[in-house]
């Protein structure tokens, strides 16, 4: 793998040298070209950068928008006119030409009818699409200082929701879903791991939300697709960009836990509530309070002891891009480093190096070859848990260990106790570490052949790619000697050795895996334009093979084979019809039934091109579009079943059983258990997807909008109907069947307004998603009570007991005369609704009282600039939904051996916010409306304040553009959950795992 990296580096070096070498061409004959730059309204634009490609000189336009620049006199040259906020304009200058005349610069817009939309296996002009596709450029995402570009997408695209599950450096888990369904990520046409992709290498991201855009992907396109295209470099526009930022991160919030005195007092209270004897004497409580004997009566604040306030973050990249009429290139080198919050011993450290080289070569008149190579090398080092290679998660310990669990040191001896067997100092300082290396190489070659010589409009594309990810984790365990403090009776304390010291000298390999993905694609494309008729045909054949190096015998590589056809017909840029046919294969069907045919159709009407509207000035652009498609779902699974052999009865070996006794064990009898019974007529689960929408531009292109309605019907789902079949048939003896239906629908849309007034420019946009879902057919018990049935009800409901507050008096309990299923209740316990009025609160009283997960997700983006000062603010939020305070380490504390959060100070009878404390009764930890809160929040997710150096000043520094900036993330959250000291986006962060980070960085970027 290192070899590949080395070759890549050489390759990039060559590209760079090529850029420098052309600098020597100074002794050629030159001539001067003049011109004027104007905007769409015809107003001259001042201060615009104008560069000549061959001579590499650059000038600025004067106040009348006029420029005058030297170009080569004897050969063709190019002039590049660029201004932030406007589309680039590159003009070819023929020998002898002396003026360019008036040069028009068009404002950059989100919806550009002229634009090409990249879709799987062939792009379409924006006019000709029939589906819901949202686009965002890589440049727009650069202001987000993060390890993972997906994070930067949060709140930026209508319908796209980003969930962040783990914030531990190097272990982040970020998942993108579109309209509520997990999205597949494709980079340059290949499903790829997005880790390490930085915004600077991304040209743009297309989010394919409906079936028309992705039908050609076959079964792989059943779910939404995020289609990422990396930069290629532009002909005659040479650019070297450098960006560097550094800063720090700190926890947005940390949970609050009680000190030893308060903990012990409350624990005693809990025991007394349960009719048990308190275990902390008054003498012990005093000792916790005045710390007279910190060994026996410790009071540890773990967050003080082990968590540092800030962790550094550094990020930098350098890009080279450019090209001429034969070769285009883009290459980048990225470096990223971040650290964890451990304040001593092994600190989590995460380093990433990334190189990319994209080259596009025109081989001759009709052939182009593109090669994209990317490699990232990621190293991590972290304290490991136990002697294994997992990460030691100290926050998980802090939320379980009360402040008096045990002292850290007794003299110089590290202490643990029976109930609290971890000593964090030992874990961080003496328990070894693990280090991991992940190499991720992504390689693609494209060949395009224009077959126009044979048949006009015919072309052929072929692509092959080979990706490999290799991850190795090595670790080294060990421990310091650990002691148990025995404080028996009135005698002296003694430290008894429990765990002897262990020094591990060598590293052992914890995990080592390799995954490869190989794929090949060929396509034939035919385009015919005749008058107002335009027809585009694509025929694609695709094969892919995903393999992992494993020894697990049931392992199956993932193999894909698709044949797809697309026909897109455009009449006069007014009426568009599209049909997609996917003949797609699945490894999971029996031989002879592997391929199925799935159709998608769509239509669009560009109303603004109709006579009656083009006359009016209301709409600059208005398009209605709709699509409907059916697609099989290939990646279904059913626990315990082998999805590749559903049509066979399978018996699995489950080890052996030796009937003998020690010394005479006899032979080992095999155990075979049923894995599945054959299903005779199983079909692929399917979905029907319908989308209808409108998009447009208004008010002189200042306002753009988009609105879509979608409806996704999932049917023929996989189920073994275990809930509705009597279990006397035996576990495992049921065949898989097509059973289950649900429907999901919603709307998403966006509106964005931009404009300027003198030096002040602004743009403000908002996007939102509203979604619902309903179970139609679901395998469930035939509950006699309708309120317990899932079918016909929303998917996102919480199933709960309905609380009626807390019991206040013994008298209230007796007079109510309703038994709650978790033993005797006392004043201070949650009182639950007896839904079926049978005098007993049990599972039969669980229903959906109406609380549900959030249904609205929205984002707000504001960009302001005044002269050289720029401010970008991005926020997102969710609304119309609820969340459950579920953590039993924080909200619903009730067991023994458990830290108490500060929230418990507000327990009953102090307030009615939390039930009484208990160590035995599970009454209050049931999922009930008592723990439901409004999940709505709004977060200021990202702010960037930048200052662009005046172009003249930049030029003095030999730069064409340079900026300095400060950036921040997670700066502010508005939410009703703030009062619990948790992050509303992930209320378990900081309790079970790493806290959510707030980031501050400062940096510079410049190009020359």
């Amino acid at each position, binding site marked *: 793998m290192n070899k590949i990296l080395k070759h890549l580096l050489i390759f990039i070096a060559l590209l760079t040298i090529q850029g420098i070498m052309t600098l020597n061409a100074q002794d050629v004959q030159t001539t001067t070209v003049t011109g004027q730059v104007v905007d769409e309204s015809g107003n001259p634009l001042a201060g615009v950068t104008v560069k000549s490609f061959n001579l590499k000189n650059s000038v600025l336009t004067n106040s009348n928008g006029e420029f005058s620049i030297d170009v080569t006199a004897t050969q063709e040259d190019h002039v590049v006119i660029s201004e932030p906020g406007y589309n680039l304009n590159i003009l070819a200058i023929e020998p002898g030409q002396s003026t360019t005349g008036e040069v028009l610069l068009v404002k950059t817009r989100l919806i550009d009818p002229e634009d090409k939309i990249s879709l799987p296996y062939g792009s379409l002009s924006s006019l000709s699409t029939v589906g819901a596709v949202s686009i965002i450029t890589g440049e727009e995402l650069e202001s987000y200082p993060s390890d993972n570009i997906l994070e930067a997408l949060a709140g930026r695209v209508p319908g796209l929701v980003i969930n962040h599950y783990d914030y531990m450096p190097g272990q982040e888990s970020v998942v993108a879903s579109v309209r509520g369904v997990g999205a597949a990520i494709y980079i340059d046409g290949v499903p790829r791991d997005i880790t390490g992709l930085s915004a600077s290498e991304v040209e743009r991201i297309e989010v394919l939300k409906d079936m028309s855009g992705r039908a050609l992907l076959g079964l792989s396109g059943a779910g939404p697709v995020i289609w990422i295209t990396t930069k290629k470099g532009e002909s005659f526009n040479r650019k070297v960009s450098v960006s560097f930022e550094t800063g720090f991160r700190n926890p947005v919030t940390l949970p609050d836990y009680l000190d030893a005195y308060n903990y012990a007092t409350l624990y005693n209270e809990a025991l007394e509530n349960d009719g048990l004897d308190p275990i*902390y004497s008054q003498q012990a409580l005093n000792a916790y309070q005045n710390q007279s004997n910190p060994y026996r009566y410790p009071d540890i604040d773990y967050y003080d002891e082990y968590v540092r306030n800030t962790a550094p973050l550094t990020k930098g990249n350098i890009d080279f891009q450019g090209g001429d009429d034969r070769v285009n290139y883009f290459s980048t080198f990225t470096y990223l480093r971040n650290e964890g919050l451990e304040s001593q011993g092994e600190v989590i450290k995460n380093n990433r190096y990334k190189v990319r080289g994209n080259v596009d070569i025109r081989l001759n008149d009709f052939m182009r070859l593109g090669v994209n190579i990317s490699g990232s090398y990621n190293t991590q080092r972290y304290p490991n848990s136990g002697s294994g290679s997992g990460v030691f998660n100290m926050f998980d310990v802090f939320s379980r260990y009360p402040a008096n669990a045990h002292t850290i040191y007794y003299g110089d001896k590290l202490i643990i106790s*029976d109930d609290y067997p971890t000593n964090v100092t030992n874990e961080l300082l003496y328990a070894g570490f693990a280090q991991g290396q992940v190499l991720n190489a992504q390689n693609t070659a494209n060949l395009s052949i224009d077959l126009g010589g044979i048949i006009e409009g*015919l072309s052929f594309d072929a692509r092959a790619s080979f990706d490999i990810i290799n991850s190795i984790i090595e670790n080294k365990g060990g421990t310091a000697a650990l002691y148990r403090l025995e404080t028996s*009776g009135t005698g002296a304390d003694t430290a008894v050795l429990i765990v002897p010291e262990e020094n591990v000298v060598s590293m052992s390999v914890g995990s080592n895996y390799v995954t490869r993905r190989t794929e090949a694609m060929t396509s034939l494309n035919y385009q015919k334009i005749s008058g107002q008729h335009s027809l585009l045909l694509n025929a694609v054949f695709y094969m892919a093979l995903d393999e992992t190096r494993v020894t697990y015998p049931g392992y199956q590589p993932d193999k894909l084979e698709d044949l797809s056809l697309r026909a897109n017909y455009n009449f006069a840029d007014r009426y568009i019809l599209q049909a997609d046919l996917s003949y797609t294969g699945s*490894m999971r069907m029996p031989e002879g039934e592997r391929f199925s045919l799935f159709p998608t159709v769509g239509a669009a009407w560009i109303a603004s091109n109709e006579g009656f509207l083009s006359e009016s000035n209301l709409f600059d652009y208005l398009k209605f579009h709709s699509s409907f498609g059916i697609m099989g779902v290939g990646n279904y699974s059913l626990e315990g079943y082998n999805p590749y*052999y559903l049509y066979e009865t*399978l018996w699995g070996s489950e080890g052996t059983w030796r009937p003998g006794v020690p010394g005479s064990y006899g032979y080992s009898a095999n155990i075979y258990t049923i894995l599945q019974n054959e299903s005779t007529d199983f079909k692929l689960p399917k979905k029907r997807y319908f989308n209808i929408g409108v998009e447009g531009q208004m008010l002189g292109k200042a306002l753009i909008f988009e609105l879509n309605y979608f409806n996704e019907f999932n049917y023929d789902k996989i189920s073994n109907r275990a809930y509705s079949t009597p279990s006397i048939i035996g576990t495992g003896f049921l065949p898989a069947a097509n059973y289950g239906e649900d429907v999901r629908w919603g709307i998403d849309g966006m509106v964005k307004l931009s404009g300027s007034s003198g030096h002040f420019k602004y743009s403000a946009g908002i996007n939102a998603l509203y979604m619902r879902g309903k179970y139609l057919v679901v395998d469930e*018990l035939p509950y006699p009570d309708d309120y317990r049935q899932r079918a016909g009800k929303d998917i996102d409901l919480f199933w709960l007991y309905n609380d009626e507050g807390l019991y206040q008096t013994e008298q209230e309990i007796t007079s109510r005369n309703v*038994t709650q*299923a978790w033993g005797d209740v006392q004043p201070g316990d949650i009182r639950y609704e007896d839904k079926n009025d049978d005098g007993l609160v049990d599972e039969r009283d669980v229903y959906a009282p109406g609380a549900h997960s959030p249904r609205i997700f929205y984002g707000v983006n504001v960009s302001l600039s005044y002269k050289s000062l720029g401010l970008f603010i991005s926020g997102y939020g969710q609304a119309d939904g609820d969340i459950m305070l579920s953590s039993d380490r924080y909200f619903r504390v009730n067991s023994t051996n458990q830290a108490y959060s500060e929230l418990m100070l507000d327990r009953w009878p102090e307030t009615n916010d939390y039930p009484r404390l208990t160590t035995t009764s599970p009454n209050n930890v049931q999922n009930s409306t008592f723990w439901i809160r409004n999940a709505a929040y709004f977060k200021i997710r990202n702010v960037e304040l930048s200052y662009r150096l005046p172009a003249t000043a930049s030029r003095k520094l030999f730069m064409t553009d340079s900026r300095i900036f400060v950036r921040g993330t997670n700066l502010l959250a508005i939410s009703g959950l703030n009062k619990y000291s948790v992050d509303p986006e992930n209320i378990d962060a900081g309790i079970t795992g790493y806290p959510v980070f707030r980031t501050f960085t400062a940096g510079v970027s410049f190009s020359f």
Partner: protein
Amino acid sequence: MKRIIIIFLATVMVTTACEYLEPRPIQDLSTDELLSVADYGEGLLSAAYRNLYPSYDINSEFYTDNAVPSTAGSNILALGGWTLETNPIGDWDLWYTSIEYCNHYLELGKDLLYSVSDPTLNEALQKNRRAEAFFLRAWYHWQLLKTYGGYAAGESEALGIPIVTEILTAEDNLDLPRSSYEDVVAQIVEDLDSAIAVLPLTYSGSSVTDNITNRGRASVMAAMTLKARVYLYAASPAYGPSTQSLWERAAAAAGEAIDASGGLTDLDSYENFNDFSSFDNIWIQPPYSYNNWEYSYYPPSLYGEGSCNPSQNLVDAFPAADGYPVDESSAFNENFPYSNRDPRLERFVFHNGDNYNGTYIRTYEGGADAPGGLSQEGTRTGYYMKKLLSKNVRLTPGDVTSDNKFYAYLTRTELYLNFAEAANEAFGPTDVTYGFSAAEALAKIRERAGIDSDNSTGGYQDQYLDDQALAGEDAFRELVHNERRVELCFEGFRFWDIRRLNKPLNNTVMGVEIVEAAVPVVPDISNIALESEASADYVSPYSRLSYINNGSISTPAFHNWWSAGQWRYVQYDFPSYFKVPGTGNVYIIDSTVVQWWEECPTCGVQYPDSAFLEVWDMDLNEWVEVWNDYDGITEDYCPIILTPAFNTNRIRLHFRDNESCGIREWLVWGIPAEAASFDYEYGDVENHTYQDYMRYVPLPYSQTLIMNNLKQNSGW
């Protein structure tokens, strides 16, 4: 154009045939493959064996007045937290799944080819395995019947569960009704009889089919013992009128099983509840070496979690050493509630001051095993469970050991108790219709326990048992029930016994709080040999040294065959006792009793020709002879009084014979000089709050919703 596309597509399809999407072959077997090799096909039967419960159901003791768990949760059911849908009792799905495997084996595995070369062996294995499948099918039907059998709403007859004797498929009508209790009993017995007709009596033979390597398989003894148990339950009042004929049927089945096993013989000693060589453990899980039980149940000072805390109620149920209930015994001293007790208390329960492998258990306030001690919870009752744990297991960090462990599904102990109960109900305590009486069967239990109402004579005396037997059926019933509770505690019996006998479901569970006494109390003289460490200069490879101080004269004796004419000795070292801090470790020894063992007057092991006793003088640091007899011992009971009493921590007995010598038990009567003393305060720990309908376990609610014919037990 079209042609080109068609050619292109055709080429693509031809070059990449469908085989590309063929998944990799997997190692799982199709049904044909499974049945093609006997080793595979028998896997269906092994699966049914594998699904047997892995351990004693100690949790079920928490639902009774026998014990409480150290942390809340697993006792919730006894505290009113028993709901239809969270019923933790029973494993409906697993048991029916296991029945399904038995039925698959019986139907599909008929013709498995076990041996090509030996048709006789092939046939024998086919027949035996098939019979085992019948046994297991009976066993799982029994599990279901025991758990869910009872009265359904609106029924006047006790109902069983749906009987399944054929392979079921998803297309079949799966809405089967519950058969009557008696029909299920009949089905179980039919399957057991099929097994009894074929299987070996025990796996103590030497052929391929009956040797020890099959120890974990079903045998005739297992089938007969199960039959006795099923009939005992069927006769119990919870499932209908307890008629004479039902009790007779139960007594007869138990009597036949005892006969088949070789008659009413002495029971083997408990050892560590893991003696797989003893066929008193009739059917066992194949033993493996592990220490999970100790990790769960040892007290904190032994590095365990102490998760089962026996109740004061259970401790009180143990009689005194003389066999009388504690409140009727003169031997019992409430200042020393753990002294002079039925030795089973010492064997089954960790109590304050208990010495275990050299560690004293301290449950007194401030002690390491008390609440808030080493582990924050500690014991809730003042006790920890000791039964089923092995003294060979140490969990000391750096010195962790394991021992062979198994779950005995069926034991001779239970068989005797089943017989004693059924025969008493059928014919009274002393009737000998089956060749032995209920009282005789119960005496075997109490004899092994070590009860002895007369220390002055050798052998087992049990006046209380005799009295109760004479007092008649009712008095004896009380004794049998209490004996069952004590003898079978922590083995998962009591929960079901309470139910089948219609005993009260609700009890107040008691515990004890122990504090150091302000005024020390002098303990009574007791047999301190039980706590001592025995050693010897020679032990026969056919014997064990531990027999001399295991508290039981009925267990095999220690002997040193063959030692012709040589002086031999055995010695006790008395460990440091549970004492007040700052005092010495000296025992005051008052007297000692040697119970010699003579195989027969002319056999290899005889009474000694000469013997003498030495005591270690702690001042002089030398042995002092305190007794001798060079005239030849003539009877087994040999009391030796030390006058005056001797202060020591070591005692040694020398003996010699032309052949060899044996000792059944060597008792040493004494007291520690300055033992710690305590005050005991008894208090409530839990109040159990069952509803009446909880006498029967509810059928899984989910199944009653799916199966319209499945009638739920009344009240649920």
